[in-house]
């Protein structure tokens, strides 16, 4: 796996908008972003309505995922190119999610919507229609998805990478600073976790830093290559961005994303929590 297998440039994207077998998918939490303009031919996936169960806090099941992708006109052997706002947080989450369900060829558009907009590239309001398919997903690959019990067991034995901002890590803030701070769970982090904010893996235009810069970043933060790794944030998308950097770009083995993240861990009864403020 190399960078070019998993990450495409805006130039590559523009040259492949009409390539058969390549499907562009915009993933945002703010679904109105797509309506205000999207890359020509891209279909929309709603992070919440399409990808969350809605009743239980979990993924949609395999049948619902198959139904969703079939309706969007995506085939199991298509190359799926994901992009979105928020520096590709939700697109990275969808990348990880598609991998959990075993999609073969998934790529991220480096820089997402932000770089695309900053370079004033074309966006369209025209609706995309693709013929429906019969999508077949695989069983969930839990080798890349961490659940709460293994996170508690990983304390002091695995690398735990907390990718939230320093103020969320220390316990000063409960959520990113563009959101109301109204949550009820405790603040702080998992003991022993290293804090490498996701933003340190990205340039200001939203593209990923080079492999050399990324290797240096995690090395300096104390990531031990002899241990397995679990990344977490607040609800699991910023940590998908770091999971992507660690596993897909740097090729590290045994990296999991903990999508329960701080909203789950910080509400568990009886687990250790470290707070620095």
């Amino acid at each position, binding site marked *: 796996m190399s960078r070019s297998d998993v990450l495409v440039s805006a130039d590559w994207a523009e040259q492949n908008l009409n390539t058969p077998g390549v499907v562009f998918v915009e993933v*945002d*939490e*703010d679904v109105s972003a797509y309506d205000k303009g999207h890359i020509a031919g891209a279909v929309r996936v709603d*992070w*919440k309505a399409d990808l*969350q169960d*809605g009743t239980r*806090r979990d993924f949609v099941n395999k049948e619902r995922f198959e139904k969703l992708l079939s309706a969007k006109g995506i085939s199991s052997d298509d190359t799926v190119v994901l992009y979105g*706002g*928020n*520096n590709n*947080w*939700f697109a990275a989450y969808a990348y990880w999610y598609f991998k959990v369900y075993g999609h073969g060829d998934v790529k991220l558009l480096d820089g997402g919507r*932000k770089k695309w*907009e*900053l*370079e*004033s590239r074309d966006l369209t309001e025209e609706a995309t229609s693709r013929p429906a398919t019969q999508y077949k997903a695989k069983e969930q690959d839990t080798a890349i998805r961490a659940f709460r019990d293994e996170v508690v067991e990983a304390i002091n034995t695995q690398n735990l990478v907390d990718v939230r*901002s*320093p*103020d969320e890590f220390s316990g*000063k*803030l409960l*959520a*990113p*600073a*563009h*959101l*109301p*701070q109204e*949550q009820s769970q405790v603040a702080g982090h998992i003991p022993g976790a290293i804090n490498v*904010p996701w*933003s*340190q893996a990205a340039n*200001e*235009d939203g593209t990923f830093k080079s492999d050399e810069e990324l290797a240096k970043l995690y090395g300096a933060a104390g990531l031990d290559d002899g241990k397995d790794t679990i990344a977490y944030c*607040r*609800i699991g*998308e*910023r940590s998908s961005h770091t999971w992507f950097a660690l596993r897909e770009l740097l090729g590290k083995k045994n990296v999991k994303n903990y999508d329960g993240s701080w*909203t789950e861990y910080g509400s568990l009864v009886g687990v250790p929590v470290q707070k620095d403020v």
Partner: protein
Amino acid sequence: MTAGCGAPDQDQDVAVGSKETVIEGKVLSGGEPVSSAYVRLLDASGEFTAEVPTGGSGNFRFFAAPGAWTVRALSSAGTGEKKLTASAGRNDVTLELV
């Protein structure tokens, strides 16, 4: 279901409680509001804290904490930056792009 990490509508006004510290304002270019500019909040050490795209009226808003912050705007129309010391309540910042 918890709320996501996406930003709420930046043009919509919000009630600010006495314990909240809100940093909000507008991004302007030649005096005109700039929509879809990317505004990021950096903490006292220059570390990225949050980022939002401006709404149609050029507005942005962060829920922060009292202390020193930097607000930076990035758009195809240019960049702008301001430092401020926020206190509890509303803190207004206007960013003019150059």
